[in-house]
Structures are given as structure tokens and as C-alpha cells.
């Protein structure tokens, strides 16, 4: 029981420590700088419309990344989120004849079911999350392909429910799109849920030390299943919003969100090894990536340079984060 108390730190170090404990602040600063730089090149970002487009486009990414954040916290990852989203959107669009409530409910059930299967595989059968969700992704793709072939369960007219088109692309007030309402609800539920509920605690615990959880009476498989079901539902919500804003469904329409969803969670400081992080950082991460996309589009460079810059910036941001927060992984 040491009683050694460090002497008061000099100011510079105090500042540093403040940042170390709240790396989201650094990320927030990065976001603001990014936004301003982009806005200098593309002044439309200073307009309501420009701001609105950033929020509108960040929302589905942030919801995908919310699922990814949860999976990360348990020490896992979910590579099937985008396929789950595709299937859910398809289901909603093919069932829209039965009324929007039923169509949306069914879509969410599909998301939950995909998550359930992932959770059972990962929690009970101990399949590595990477493999389980890659496999799941391929199973879902197969299912869609079978369903889409003539006479299949997904063939027939597809109509994106009108509610979705409104929520996915409409405006609440000023620069705030309607889908931001969904995002806000998800954020509140997640931030509070992780910090203030037993399940939230267990999600962190399982990611930090599953053995300790078992010995404390936590049934790890239950936590994992619950987590992946939530991830599946979040993926379905994201898929529905995307189909609403683009007015389309397609068997691979959200696939380009997969790697960015992982990147957003990583940039947001959630440890891919589990047990540390949270949704707050992910929100900023999603915003940063959306502005980055905007920046690359504004610069008008070719695809090759876009890819290079995207990779380099994601790397640099993650590096800054680790350097500032001192959360080295080794």
C-alpha cells in the first residue's frame, strides 16, 4: 500500500493528462480542423445545406459503426453488418405492401435473427468472430441470391416504404435531417446503456476478461448473444435508412460501408481488443470520415489518390489518437 503521491504536475503536463484521459476532445479538435479546412476549399460547408449533407450522410455510417463499437467492446468484430443491412432493406421493400409497420418490424426481426445466429456461433460454439461473421456474410449473400432468383422469396416488386423515404432523406429543421433523430436516439440509448446498465457493464467485462466474468457468475455466451443481436438490429436500422435516402434496395448496396464502419470505431478510440472505449468517440469518428469523403471529392483527385489519401488519413488519425491517449495495444 504505497502512499506515494506525485507532486503537482506542471501546467503543460496537466494539460497533457487532461487530454490523455479524454482523447475524444482531441478527436473533436481534429474534426473541427478538418471541417474548417474542407470548408475553405468548399465554402458550401458553411451553408445550411452543406452542413445538412454531412449530417445526413454521417448518420447511417455512425449507426453501422455503433454496432461495430459494441462488437469491438466484447473483443469481437462484425463483418456481416452490411449484408444484414442489405437483406433487411430488401425485406422491408418487398413487404411494403403489407403496410409500413409490418415491413419495418420484419426488417428489424431479420437483423435480430442474423445477429442471433452470429451470437450463437460466437458465444456458444466459440467460432472466432472474424470467421463467423465472414461466413454469415456469405450465407446471407447466398440467401439473397436464392431469394432473388425467379419465384424466390425476395422476388417481386420492391417499393421502399414511404416512411423510410421521409425519415431517410427528409429535414427536421434547418440543417438537421430527419435521420439524425434516429441517430440521436441510438446515441442516447448506447451511451447511457453502456455506462448505466448491467448489460453495458457486462459487455465491457466480457471484452476485458471473459474468464473473470465466468468466475463472477456472468454467462459469457448470454452477453455475446445479446450484443450481436443488438448489432444486427442496428445494422438493419442503418440499412433501412440507406434504402430510404437513396430510394433503392440492392443485394450489395451498403457493402461500401463495411470498412468505414470499422475505421470510424477505431478512430473513435474503441479498442478492437475489447474492454475499453465507447460510442462517444465513434460518433466523432463517423463525422470525421464523412468530412474526409467530402474533402476528397472536393479535391477532385482520381480514385487512386483518393484511396491512398483515405488510407493514410485513417492511419494518421488512429496514430494521433494512440499517441495522445497513451492507449498502446502492446
Amino acid at each position, binding site marked *: 500500500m504505497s502512499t506515494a503521491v506525485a507532486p503537482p504536475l506542471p501546467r503543460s503536463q496537466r494539460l497533457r493528462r487532461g487530454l490523455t484521459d479524454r482523447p475524444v476532445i482531441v478527436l473533436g479538435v481534429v474534426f473541427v480542423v478538418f471541417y474548417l479546412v474542407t470548408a475553405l476549399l468548399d465554402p458550401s460547408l458553411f451553408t445550411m445545406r452543406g452542413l445538412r449533407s454531412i449530417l445526413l450522410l454521417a448518420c447511417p455510417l455512425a449507426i453501422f459503426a455503433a454496432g461495430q463499437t459494441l462488437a469491438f467492446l466484447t473483443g469481437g468484430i462484425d463483418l456481416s453488418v452490411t449484408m444484414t443491412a442489405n437483406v433487411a432493406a430488401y425485406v422491408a421493400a418487398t413487404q411494403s405492401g403489407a403496410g409500413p409497420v409490418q415491413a419495418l418490424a420484419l426488417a428489424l426481426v431479420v437483423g435480430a435473427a442474423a445477429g442471433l445466429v452470429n451470437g450463437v456461433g460466437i458465444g456458444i*460454439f*466459440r467460432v472466432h468472430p472474424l*470467421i463467423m461473421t465472414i461466413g454469415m456474410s456469405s450465407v446471407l449473400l447466398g440467401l439473397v441470391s436464392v431469394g432473388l432468383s425467379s419465384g424466390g422469396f425476395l422476388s417481386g416488386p420492391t417499393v421502399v416504404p414511404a416512411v423510410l423515404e421521409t425519415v431517410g432523406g427528409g429535414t427536421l429543421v434547418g440543417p438537421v435531417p430527419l435521420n439524425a433523430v434516429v441517430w440521436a436516439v441510438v446515441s442516447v440509448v448506447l451511451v447511457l446503456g453502456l455506462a448505466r446498465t448491467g448489460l453495458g457493464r457486462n459487455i465491457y467485462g466480457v471484452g476485458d476478461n471473459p474468464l473473470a466474468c465466468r468466475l463472477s457468475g456472468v454467462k459469457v455466451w448470454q452477453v455475446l448473444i445479446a450484443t450481436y443481436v443488438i448489432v444486427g438490429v442496428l445494422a438493419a436500422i442503418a440499412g433501412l435508412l440507406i434504402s430510404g435516402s437513396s430510394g433503392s434496395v440492392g443485394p450489395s448496396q451498403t457493402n461500401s460501408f463495411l470498412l468505414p464502419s470499422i475505421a470510424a470505431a477505431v478512430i473513435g478510440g474503441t479498442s478492437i481488443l475489447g474492454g475499453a472505449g465507447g460510442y462517444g468517440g465513434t460518433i466523432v469518428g463517423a463525422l470525421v470520415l464523412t468530412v474526409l469523403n467530402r474533402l476528397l471529392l472536393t479535391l477532385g483527385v482520381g480514385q487512386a489518390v483518393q484511396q491512398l489519401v483515405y488510407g493514410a488519413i485513417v*492511419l494518421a488519425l488512429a496514430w494521433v489518437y494512440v499517441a495522445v491517449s497513451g492507449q498502446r495495444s502492446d
Partner: protein
Amino acid sequence: MILVRYLQVENFGGFELRALTAGSLMLALLAMAQGVVVLSGGINLAVGALMVLANCFSAWLMEDASLGTSVLVAVLTVAGTALLSGLMGWIVTVSGMPDIVVTLALHFAFVGLALLILGGPGGRANPQLSQLIVGGFSNPWPALLWLTGIYCLIWIPFRRSRAGIATYAIGSDRQAAFLAGIVVKRARVHAYVVSGVFAGLAGLVTTALLGSGSPQESIALGALLGSVAAVVLGGVALSGGRGQLLGPVLAAFVLTLIPAILLSLGVNPNVAVLLEGLIIIGVVMLGGLLELRRRKL
């Protein structure tokens, strides 16, 4: 499984064998590229991108080159990917970022680089070199010999060397390895360098097999997923330190065979995609069940 395929195809011969060996060679090399990093306790999400990069780079330089020059290009390519991969490993160790993050970000960057080198599909392989690497259409032997050669002349000596043991050691218990005096950072970089060598070779094989370069992200992603699946099916623990690379190599053969066999069984190809996913999950679940008997949570 080769047997099943043998029974399925009426005149199974050099052509089918070559389709199998040459087709598997690339995946087998990728599996090794992934495997060595996994053994060291990491993961390399950029193997596919490195392969694409090597493919484009070599096809770009080999266009209209003589055999001698092409061989030089091949060596240069492998050295290049080894260097890039080593650089990636260096960033992982210096930055303290999780390797998933670093390699994922560089996956994007490497594909961008490939696209920069070769604006689109293009370039050309040296036909003689192709012949040497993957053989003619009914000649299964060169591919098989290369695979055996690479395994025996690169992997086995590496595994036996101190650097190889260190790779296993850092994958097994990094803290203990450090206390035992291993320079963990250096050992990690070594693993990435070896991984880069294998990924570069896989890129060369692609060039030889397909005759040109193709800088597409989807190819890199597909290759990456294949490499992870092969490593896991091959019995290498994703937690590191345990397993041999022979498993992933054999798994590469199996993964190449599954679609062909399913098709010949008359399975609807759409259902085949589904079954492939189920088979991968199933095999791994079985492994999980066996593990479950040992220790449960």
C-alpha cells in the same frame, strides 16, 4: 476431396490437376502470408492488397520485357512487397496501434498505389515466365513444385531459425517473450517481412496465371477473406503461437475444390455460395466444440 473430384470428372487428368494446383497456388501463398503474421499473434488485413500491388507492379514492368528482365522484375517485386510489409510491421510496433487498424488503413493505400501504377487492368506477363511458374494448361507440376519449393526452402528454414522460434514465441506470450530477451518489435517486423515475401509471390503467381495486372479493390478483399478462411480452416489459432503452415496450405486446396465439387453435384450455384459459408462456419464450429470440451467460459 481430390478423390471426390476425381470421381466426378470423367477424364480427370493433367488439365484438372493443373486447374487445382495452379488455382490453389495463389491462395496457398496468401494463406502462408496471413499464417505467419497470425502465428506471431497479429493479423494482416493488407495481404490481399499487397498481392494486387505485386500483380500490377510486375505486370506493368514485364510488358514487353525479356525473360531475363522479367526474372529481375519478379525479384524486385518480392523484395518490394517484403519491404512494404516490413514497413507496415514497423508502423505497427512504433505506433502502438492495433495491427488490424494499421493493416486495414494500408489495405486502402496499397490498392490506391496499385491503381496509380496501372490506371486500370493492363500490363502483361512474360509468357515464358508464366510457363515456368504455372505451367501449360495440362501441366500440374510447376505449380506444385513451386509450392513445395517455397514451403521447404523459405518457410521450413525460417521456422527452424531463431527468428522463426521468436515468431511463435511472441504469438504465444508476448510478455514472457520479452522477459526471455526477445526483441519483440524486431520479431514482429520479421513476421511481416516474411508475410510480404509470400504476398509478393502470390502476386507474381497471379500475374503468371492471368497474364496481366488488375488493380481492383474487390480482388484484394476477396483474396484477404480467402486467406483468413484458409488460415482458420488450416488449424492455426487466431490467438497466435499455435499451428503449422501446412494446414492453411491444404485448406487452400480444399477451398479451391469446394465450389467445383458443389457444382458437379448439381447444386444451384446460388445455393453453393450459401453452402460454402455454412461449410466454413461448420468446420470451425466443430473445432470450437472440441475446444469447448477442454475449457468453457
